[in-house]
Structures are given as C-alpha cells and as structure tokens.
C-alpha cells in the first residue's frame, strides 16, 4: 500500500510556481528522499503534505486520508521536524517536550520514559531544565529533532533535519532512525543537502524548480549517468590521452591539466592504466558518481549553486538562523 500518494500537485504563490505538477508514491516503511537546490519546492511540498498549506491544484493522500478533506486524520498520522525553528524558546527543553507529548496524546505512563529516552539520544539530559533561549544553535536543532521523534507517527517528515549538526550527532540520530524504522515500521520522508544522507534513502526524488526530474534508488540514479571517472595527471596529457583513446577505446576529456576517462568499472581499469610503462603518471584517482553528479548531469548545475529563485529562500534561511 502506498503510504503517501501525490498526484499532480501544484502550488502557486503570488508569482512563483513553487511546486509544478509533482506526482510520486511513497511506500510504507520506506525512507524516501527529496534532493534539490534551494528554492526547489521541497519545503512547500512538505507543507502541503502535513496540511499547513493547501495545494493550488492536484491531490495528495497520506495514510489513506486526503490532505485537504481530512486534515485532522492526516495530522494524527504524522510527525515533523521543520527546517525553520519552531521551539518555544521561553520554555525549558523538557517543557517543550512535555507540551509535545501532551498534544500528541502520549499516555501518561509512557510520557516520562519517552522524554527521558529522547533527551538521552539528543544528549541534552543535563540541560533539560534550562531555557531554550540559552541553547546553542546545534542544541536547539537537536531538541527539534528529539521532539519530532517523541511520538511514533506513521510518517515522519524530516526537512533538512541534521543541517548544522556535527557528524557524530548526525550518526547517532541516523542509528536511532533506522532502529525506529525497523521496530515501528515508520515511513520517513526526508529532504537533505547531504549526499550521504540521500544515499541512505531507499529511493530519492531529485527536484528542481518545482518539478521532479528523476526518481529512483540511489544506485540506479548513479548508474543512469554512466560508470566511473578516472582522473589522471601525466607529464604529457595530450599524448597520453590520444594513446589511451586508441588503445583502450575509452572516452577521454582533457580539462584543467587533468585527463578524465569514462569507464564502466574504474577499479579494474586503474591497474591496467598505470602498469603501462609508456604512460608517465603523476597522480591518479577513481571517481565514483555521486548523487551530486546525477544532479549536475540532469540540470547542468550544482545543487549548492545559488540560482535566481533560490535567493529569496536563502534570505529566509538567514533570517531563521539569525533568530536563533
């Protein structure tokens, strides 16, 4: 059964078409990733799915409930970690968690135990009674994540959850997420800029300018743009490039003092190249395609590159960060 079903959803802000006819399905228990540059429409899609915004047109169904017609049932099925801050900074960490536990109807006997577990996970147990305003940016972020994990929803939305967190904490949180997913069969809908997090997903949708331009498993996506690239620096690039082209029948490009060689399997090609005495190797490396390369291949731009429409949303980022 599809846990989330989105059919041709559009969202038009005054002049900006933020989401432009998006359709996809997310299966139960799946980790589904949304990968795209600033302003691509990731947060807007999440806002529609979690009933904070109405789609301009199209239909979205979550856990069998239409997000427009049965918003209350949808809300009862989801949990979310927002991209922008959403804590009550005047309350303590524990009071924030308590509020969440109350409104999400966690039974009294489980409340204390869950809060304790989450505080432990996000490493805030010693600071639990401190006012959130006095926390560092990373600590606030950890609290937001902890709060999102407090109740076990059917679908958990994570909008760039680990942005600004140190690698150790990210690792920690992912371990817990994977555990949750196995035990509670939680479906996770994730947006991220981190390639390694996107790799963690069962399937990834690449979204750009409000449109999904590719959707598949990370492996398939990478395969779709061809195999590995070997980067080779030699004393005489032009001569070597010609030689490789004729001898190995490989596609070769010279750029910026480096020879780029396309091959299906870089690891087995590499020894053959450098064992050849006639090639005066200076340095060599094998480059496996990443999801970043996939994006670059599909759009001709890098994910992190700022583009016209992204600037506005960057500003709101900056504003959000300043508030912390």
């Amino acid at each position, binding site marked *: 059964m599809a846990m989330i079903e989105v059919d041709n959803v559009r969202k038009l802000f005054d002049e900006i078409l933020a989401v432009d006819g998006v359709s996809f399905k997310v299966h139960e228990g799946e980790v589904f990733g949304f990968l795209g540059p600033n302003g691509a429409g990731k947060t807007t899609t999440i806002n529609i799915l*979690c*009933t*904070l*915004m*109405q789609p301009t047109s199209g239909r979205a169904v979550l856990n069998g409930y239409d997000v427009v017609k049965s918003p*209350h049932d949808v*809300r*009862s099925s*989801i949990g*979310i970690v*927002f991209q*922008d*801050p*959403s*804590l*009550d*900074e*005047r*309350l303590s960490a524990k*009071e924030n968690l308590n*509020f*969440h536990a*109350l*409104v*999400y*109807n966690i039974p009294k006997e489980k409340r204390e135990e869950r809060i304790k577990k989450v505080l432990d996970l996000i490493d805030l147990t010693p600071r639990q009674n401190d*006012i959130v305003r006095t926390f560092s940016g990373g600590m606030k972020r950890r609290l937001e994540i902890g*709060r999102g994990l407090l109740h076990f929803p059917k679908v958990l939305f994570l909008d760039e959850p680990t942005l600004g967190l140190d690698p150790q904490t990210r690792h920690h949180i992912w371990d817990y997420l994977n555990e949750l997913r196995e035990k509670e069969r939680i479906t996770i809908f994730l947006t991220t800029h981190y390639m390694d997090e996107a790799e963690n997903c069962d399937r990834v949708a690449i979204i750009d300018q409000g449109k999904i331009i590719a959707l598949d498993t990370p492996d398939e996506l990478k395969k779709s743009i061809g195999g590995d690239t070997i980067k080779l620096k030699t004393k005489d690039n032009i001569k070597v490039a010609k030689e490789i082209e004729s001898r190995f029948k490989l596609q070769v490009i010279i750029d910026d003092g480096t020879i780029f060689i396309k091959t299906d399997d870089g690891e087995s090609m590499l020894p053959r190249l450098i064992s050849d005495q006639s090639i005066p190797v200076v340095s060599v490396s094998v480059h496996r395609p990443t999801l970043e390369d996939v994006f670059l291949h599909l759009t001709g731009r890098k994910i992190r590159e700022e583009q016209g429409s992204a600037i506005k949303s960057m500003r709101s980022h900056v504003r*959000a960060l300043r*508030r912390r």
Partner: protein
Amino acid sequence: MSFKDIRAIYSIWLRDLTRYRRDRFRLVSSVAQPALYLFVFGTGLSRGLAIRGGSGSSLGPVDNYVVFIYPGILGMSLLFTSIFSAMSIIWDREFGFLKEVMVAPISRTSVAIGKAMGGSTVAVIQGLIILLFAPFIGVSFSIQTLVIIIPLMFLISFSLTSFGIVIAARMESMEGFQMVMNFLVMPLFLLSGAMFPIERLPEWLKALTVLDPLTYGVDALRGLMLGMEVSANPISLNIAVIIAFGAAMISLAVVMFNRKE
C-alpha cells in the same frame, strides 16, 4: 467537546501560564503600571483638574478621585493583559512555534479556546495583584463581593482575549502590534469611563462609549467595589453585554482558526 479537546485546551493553557511565570518583567510591570497611574492621576492630577467628589459633584456619590478610578485601573490592567496575551500569537507565528501547534492532532477550536483561557487566567492573576492595593486606596469590600469579582474579571478578560485573538489570527508581523495598541487598545481604554465619569463627556463621545465593551466591564467592577449607586447600568445589563460580546468573539476566533490558508 471530548476529553481529547479538554486535554488540548489544557496544554495550550499550561504553556501560557508557564511563560507568564517565567516573565519577571511582566509581573513587575503589572504592579508598577497601575501603581503609577493611581499615584499620578490620583494625587496630583485630580487636584489640578479640580475633579472633586462629594454630594452633587461630578463623581457622583464617590468623594475621592483615586477611589473612583481604582476599578477603572483594574479594568485597564485586564484589557492590557488580555490583548497582550492574545498578541503573543503573532510572536508564535514569527518564531515558528505556531507551526508546532497547527500541525498537531488537536482541533483548531481547542487551540483558540486554550489561548483564550490562558490569556484570561493570566489577566485574572494580574487583577488579583491589583486588588491587593485596595486597603491602601481606602476601598473595602466583603468576601462575598470578591467571590463575584473574580469570575467577573475572568469573564471580562475572556471576552477581551478572544477579541485580541480575532485580530491576531491574521496578523503577520510585529509592526501590527503597535497599530493595535495605538488605534484599538488605547481608545478602548480611554472610552471605557475608567478614568472619568462618562456623564461628563459630550454627547457624541458618550455615544462611542456605549460601543466600547470595556465600558460595561468597568461599570460592573465599579458597582461591585464602590456600591451599586455608583454604576451607570444595572449589573445584569453589564454582565449580559460582556457575555454576549465574549460569546461572539470566541466564536469568531474559532472560525478564524479553522480557516484554511
């Protein structure tokens, strides 16, 4: 209304009270502002303006200006506290916490009611603090009267907080708050008869005071605290108007919260 809704109302209410407890500044200013008003208007200004009590005077049966404005200052404090509490919705929107509330599986109706309950509880606490001044002003009333004043304060605050929520529900920015203070709250306060007897006003202004919901609150408080002969309207009329206004406002607030973006 189900148990679920009551728990939701309770959580919204509890949060407002926790925040209030934390806010030392609000507590201090809640005492300082009425004290200042009572002092400035009561001692200095009344002499300067030659407002004097006694039989046949402008204050009616009350012979002391400070005593006359005391229930008015209480009404002012309820007004300011209620509107301020309601306006915190704008802060919640700006700082993002409103999203946490709006995405939770609780009815929008209980969010609006919880907010109104929270604001009015805080206002009643502020009101009780002001009631502690009574002996120093020379106002005394019985315990029975106090038992009526407390729910009356709650009723007034509930209607005013709901009114504030209606305004705050669609407001996007903090700048709007200043507008509300200047163009709504101050006129409500000044036209309520809190600081001077309404009978002394010119006819056209008198007509406006009838439209001010706080007029009825102040009049009811004044009647209860200083004696029924001081109030302009019968207490039943005052309470009926406050209830009607409150019911209309909370209904409107609920509708505003249920509206979709």
